[in-house]
Structure formats: structure tokens, C-alpha cells
């Protein structure tokens, strides 16, 4: 970990950490890096994701739901973007945001048709309860499928916004600066 810059760094880049806190193929330039933020992002990111999954499942009985859950998960990615820049490799499965959006929409609409297979009406909900001995009773409500579609779609939307309003505009700014020089 020897950082011997050829050019004397501007004081605005002093904050850059020496280690790799977040996984990212592309790093912000030093000017924007902040050790503290990256540290917090590293801890907060998975925590917020857990929170979002909680909201997805808790929605039936408490405030939350696929929509809020998706937005919270999206905020996790926002945080990650703010700290670490572009997030091309944030997950092991890399999926373009539009694909995620499409997938979410497909799941949500397909889930509307699902009850037809079991002789129900469109969008009808079924409630299944299982008793799994060590874990207690598990309730499965089919509408959670729709909620998951919503969740995925929202995450996709936020990721897409980060890709466009975030990185896209950033690239424009860079291009503009290059063009001026």
C-alpha cells in the first residue's frame, strides 16, 4: 500500500483512503473520496438491504411492503453510489437495470395470471399456512409474489436512475470538462 503520487496531490484529495472499502471497478477521483463515508457505506449497505427485505415481508402486518422495501433497497444503492461511484460490479450477478425492471414487471403481471391455474380469479390471493416443526408456523400469502415483482422493479428503477441521472450525467460533466480543456 504505497501511494507515491508523481504529482503532488491537491489538498482536496487528501481524504482518499488507502484501502479498498467498496467493491467497484471504477473509483471516484480522489477529490470526491471520503474515508468516513466509505466506511459507513460499507457497513450500512448490507444492513439497509436487510432492512429492505424486512420491509418487503413485514408489509402485510406492519408498515412496509414491496414498494417501500424496494425504495429502501434502492437507497442502499444510492448510498453506495454516493460513496463509491459507479457500481458496475456491486453484485455477483450483474444485471442491467432495464432487465431488472423488465423482470419485475414480468413477475408482477405474471403473478396476476397465476391464480387462474388454480381455478381462481385474476389477482386473487391464496393464503397457505405450513407448520414446520422447529420453526413454527409459516404463513405464505401469494400476493407476496406481486410484492416481490414490485420490489425488483423498484430496485431496478433506482439502479437505472443511478445509471442515468448518476453516472450518465457524471460522464457528461467529465466530457464537458474535457471539451473545455
Amino acid at each position: 500500500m504505497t501511494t507515491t503520487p508523481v504529482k503532488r496531490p491537491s489538498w482536496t484529495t487528501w481524504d482518499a483512503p488507502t484501502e479498498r472499502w467498496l467493491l467497484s471497478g471504477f473509483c471516484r477521483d480522489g477529490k470526491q473520496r471520503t474515508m468516513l463515508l466509505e466506511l459507513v457505506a460499507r457497513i450500512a449497505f448490507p444492513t439497509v438491504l436487510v432492512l429492505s427485505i424486512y420491509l418487503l415481508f413485514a408489509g402485510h402486518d406492519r408498515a412496509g411492503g414491496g414498494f417501500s422495501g424496494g425504495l429502501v433497497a434502492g437507497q442502499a444503492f444510492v448510498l453506495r453510489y454516493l460513496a463509491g461511484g459507479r457500481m458496475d460490479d456491486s453484485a455477483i450477478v450483474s444485471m442491467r437495470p432495464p432487465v431488472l425492471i423488465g423482470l419485475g414487471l414480468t413477475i408482477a403481471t405474471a403473478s396476476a395470471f397465476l391464480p387462474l391455474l388454480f381455478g381462481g380469479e385474476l389477482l386473487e390471493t391464496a393464503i397457505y399456512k405450513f407448520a414446520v416443526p422447529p420453526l413454527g408456523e409459516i404463513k405464505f400469502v401469494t400476493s407476496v409474489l406481486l410484492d416481490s415483482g414490485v420490489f425488483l422493479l423498484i430496485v431496478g428503477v433506482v439502479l437505472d436512475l443511478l445509471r442515468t441521472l448518476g453516472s450518465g450525467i457524471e460522464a457528461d460533466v467529465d466530457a464537458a470538462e474535457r471539451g473545455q480543456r
Partner: protein
Amino acid sequence: MTINLTMAVVLAVLYSVGFYLLMQRSLMRILLGIVILGHGSNLLLQTAGGPPAGAAMIGTTDPAQMADPLPQAMALTAIVITFALTTFLLALAYRSWTLLGHDEVRDDIEDRRIQRLERRLAESEEDSAEDLAKEATQ
């Protein structure tokens, strides 16, 4: 069921401010106007359900004390839709900025052309009417 005066004043202010911003030329102001109007309409939707009450959670709130859940669900949908469209308009403002170098909604060029024609017609009297007639009936 009547909305109380405090909420009425809030609604009046939100809608007025929103409408005023909507009638501006700066796209960013218009956008803020739409966001504020969205807030106003969502608040209106929520208050349309009735005065404050307990959250509509079975088991924690007595059904008689529950706030009307339907307007909340509708407002939730409306919030999401307003958000979606706001981001879109934001992107449009940005695009306008990159294309034109400003983010203003200027007047329509073709309409301006017709206005110029109208003014020219108003200035010149009979003689040009003949030409125009020829033009018109060609």
C-alpha cells in the same frame, strides 16, 4: 368529515404555490411546482378520508378508530406516479439543458410565425388582402 381549517389553509397554499410555479418559464421551477402540486393533491386525497385517526392496522387499532385506508392506498399510488413523472421531467430538463444551453420553455416558433403574419395583416389593409386572396385560393 369536513376538512379542518388548518388543512384547508395548507392546501390553499400548496396549490397556489404549485400553480404559480407551474406558470413560470424555467423548467426547474415548473418541475418544483409539479412536485408541490403533487404534495398538495396527495394531502388532499389523504384528508378526503377524514380527520386524523389510528393507523389501519388490525390488531393494534380498534376498527372504529381506524383512519380510512382507501385514500391512503390511493395516495400511495399517486405518490409513486408523481415521483416517476418528476424524474422523467427532470431528465427532460436536463436534456433541454444539454441541447439548448438553457432549461426554459420558450414560445413556439411556428405559432410566432403566424402571429407575425397576423400583425402584418393587421397593419396592411385592403390591397394586401387581394394578394392574400390569391395566395389563399391558389
